[in-house]
């Protein structure tokens, strides 16, 4: 089996676009949650969001080469471009490079408004452009990325709701480990949209002020947006081209709660199962883990469930934080951005904090890293993600060492 390393990172996030801006914001505890600017939220209970405000597509990509480039599509293509540049990767014509992307909604939400619905209700489909419809498909962004950069292996789309990032990383990991791919761009992306904002507001999952994961006074999640992409590469290929290696992916775990499509399992059985699968694949024990990047949405149910799962596996020995406290919940981008952060943690030995944490919740009996980042030599990081539908995905990253026992 081949080893899989991370050699490139692309980030578009509410705390900053670009890897370094993102990292500095994380270790300085920047809070990106503000009153929502991109949507009219006047009809909703809540009005806060974490929005990307510094993204300029033209800096990264030639928009003329993208057919009807929606913001979501721009996020996907630009994040991949950033990862390519970061890795110094040359895309040959006969490459075995793939792209595996996912989103919570991609642009399918847009089918509910605008021209498409207008034409549908009037049986006037034929008076509009096919390309508008074409762009609404969930798989269009992976296709656009593969076309734009000339990847020849695959353009795969896996919509795993909020667990997209870790799920696509798991799939990409297998493609490289089995020798099918030499490199895969894996990530997630979503733009701020009414469907997600309104939906979470309607089910009363949103906080009216800020995001306080694991805090006793937490009031819910805050919707965010963005894109995160990792360039995952066969270790031998990365070493041959003398690439900078952030870390190594050594295992993943996937599970379903099999409990409810809307409510997480109260004791986190699915997260425990996914974690055990990931640690077993990585060949490590819970005490080897130095940091858990939690899903930590700041909803009552998620945080209690996840804390129980973390406690069941690690006890109170491992540092835990949720960067959603700063970024909000960036939907399809959430766990991909968390994977980007985790790769930087293993490379740089600094753990970002869980901000807005003032009152510990006794029901969340875990070792939260509160409010201030710390320096710590980290060998292994675990990143959790949980999704609507009861889908759980956990990945394990390690500091890169050429010889690994």
């Amino acid at each position: 089996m081949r080893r899989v390393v991370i050699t490139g990172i692309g980030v578009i996030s509410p705390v900053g676009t670009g890897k370094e801006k993102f990292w500095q914001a994380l270790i300085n505890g920047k809070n990106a949650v503000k009153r929502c600017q991109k949507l009219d939220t006047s009809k909703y209970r809540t009005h806060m969001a974490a929005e990307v405000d510094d993204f300029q597509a033209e800096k990264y990509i030639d928009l003329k080469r993208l057919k009807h480039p929606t913001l979501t599509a721009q996020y996907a293509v630009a994040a991949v471009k950033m990862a390519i540049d970061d890795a110094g990767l040359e895309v040959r014509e006969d490459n075995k490079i793939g792209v595996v992307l996912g989103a919570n909604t991609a642009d399918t939400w847009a089918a509910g408004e605008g021209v498409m619905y207008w034409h549908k209700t009037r049986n006037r489909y034929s008076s509009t452009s096919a390309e508008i419809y074409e762009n609404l498909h969930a798989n269009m962004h992976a296709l656009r990325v593969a076309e734009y950069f000339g990847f020849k292996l695959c353009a795969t789309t896996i919509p795993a709701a909020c667990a997209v990032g870790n799920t696509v990383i798991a799939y990409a990991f297998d493609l490289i480990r089995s020798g099918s791919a030499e490199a895969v761009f894996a990530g997630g992306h979503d733009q701020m949209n009414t469907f997600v904002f309104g939906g979470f507001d309607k089910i009363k999952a949103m906080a009216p002020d800020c995001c306080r994961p694991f805090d006793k006074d937490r009031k819910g999640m805050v919707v965010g947006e963005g894109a995160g992409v990792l360039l995952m590469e066969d270790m031998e290929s990365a070493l041959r081209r003398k690439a900078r290696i952030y870390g190594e992916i050594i295992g993943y775990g996937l599970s379903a709660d099999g409990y409810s499509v809307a409510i997480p399992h109260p004791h986190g059985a699915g997260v425990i199962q996914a974690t055990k699968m990931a640690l077993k694949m990585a060949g490590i024990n819970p005490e080897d883990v130095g940091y858990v990047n939690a899903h930590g949405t700041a909803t009552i149910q998620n945080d209690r469930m996840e804390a129980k799962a973390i406690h069941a596996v690690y006890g109170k020995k491992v540092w835990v934080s949720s960067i959603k406290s700063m970024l909000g919940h960036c939907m399809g981008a959430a766990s991909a951005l968390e994977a980007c952060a985790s790769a930087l943690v293993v490379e740089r030995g600094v753990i970002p904090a869980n901000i807005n944490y003032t009152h510990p919740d006794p029901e969340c009996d875990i070792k939260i890293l509160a409010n201030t980042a710390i320096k710590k030599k980290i060998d292994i990081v675990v990143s959790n993600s949980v999704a609507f539908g009861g889908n759980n995905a956990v990945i394990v990253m390690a500091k890169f060492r050429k010889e690994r026992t």
Partner: protein
Amino acid sequence: MKQSKSRVVLTGLGICSPLGIGVVPYWNNFLSGVNVLKRITSFSTTEFGCRHAFQVNERDLINNTRDNTSQYVSRSNKLLLVSVRTALTDAKIKNPVGEDVAVLTALPHGNWNFMTDFHRKLVVCGPDGVDPMAFPSSLINYASSYISTAYQFKGPNITFASGIHAGVEAVNFAASLIRQGHVTTAVVSGVNVLLADIWAQWSLRNMLCSSLKKGSTGIFDARRNGFLIGENASTLILESAAVAERRKARVYAEVLGGALSFGKDRRDYAYAMETALHNSRRSYSDIDLCVLNSNGLKHMDSEEIAAFRSIFKEGASGVDCVAPKDNNGECEGASGILQALIGAKCISGRILPPFSSRKYNDPRAAGGIQMRYGSRTKTIKYVLINSFDVDGGNAALLLGRF
């Protein structure tokens, strides 16, 4: 010989299709060339050239989903439920350990109508106009999650939305999960239902067949100018060979290997097929049957035949092929799973199905590959499945006799 622990076999087949619900009625109708093409009545097609599709009979669907009438279960969910149920019954799997069962579903359009309606109501009526319970059921991964929840399957749950070839991608990943020992069993499905928006999109891209009035419905017919949509949910039960042997399960076929590629021409299709053969340690001369992707889109069909000929070279005209989309339609997310189901039935039943159900195919359009009418008995050891999307994704799969 590889250890049975790392081998993956097909032990159950399920289907909910216009040609039948359950694999036995479906197979009989498929072999007989029954034509179930019907005019669409669920939405208006007056502005389009194509007005026909292969549709699952509504009464059959109602009869098979009487125990689930929830308003949050969409038509695609219902087809999926019926298909999974028939596959689990076929595999005779009783009380599996939930943690050992993965669920993978190819569903490129998700619960499209639910998502668009929820969003539309939010825009027009505001939050008071939407039902909160409808929100989770609108998400693309809902259908697959619904299966895990309904059966308490707790292994990995993954939705593939890559396009028409997503089903073969799902089979390949499911086999990988079993080979690595993460699970012993995988329920792998693909679903497609008729949706007005998607219909409009295909139509506006000039991909639907509008030549029916000229009497042309057959794939590779010289007058054919596009595909016909088919509703379908197909399911495969993949199991570790060791587990299947232990419970004395009937084995339809073995999953030997697969491959992916991206691109829209013959070299890209050929790469996926050749790599699937390579990964399975087989050569083109081993192949007894090829299940083609061809769906009536002239350019892409001819590229597939060119790819096929480039792999099989002078032996191409001697290899048997089947083009199941001729009387199933383009089943999009369900296509790859349906192709694999057909391949598995051919291997286990030692039967060579008709190339297609039409007798007016044009041999020149099919590039001289074998076009048989009527089925016959033949021992089939290896079946190559070729699946690709109109927008560039390709996947191939090799099945073998166990």
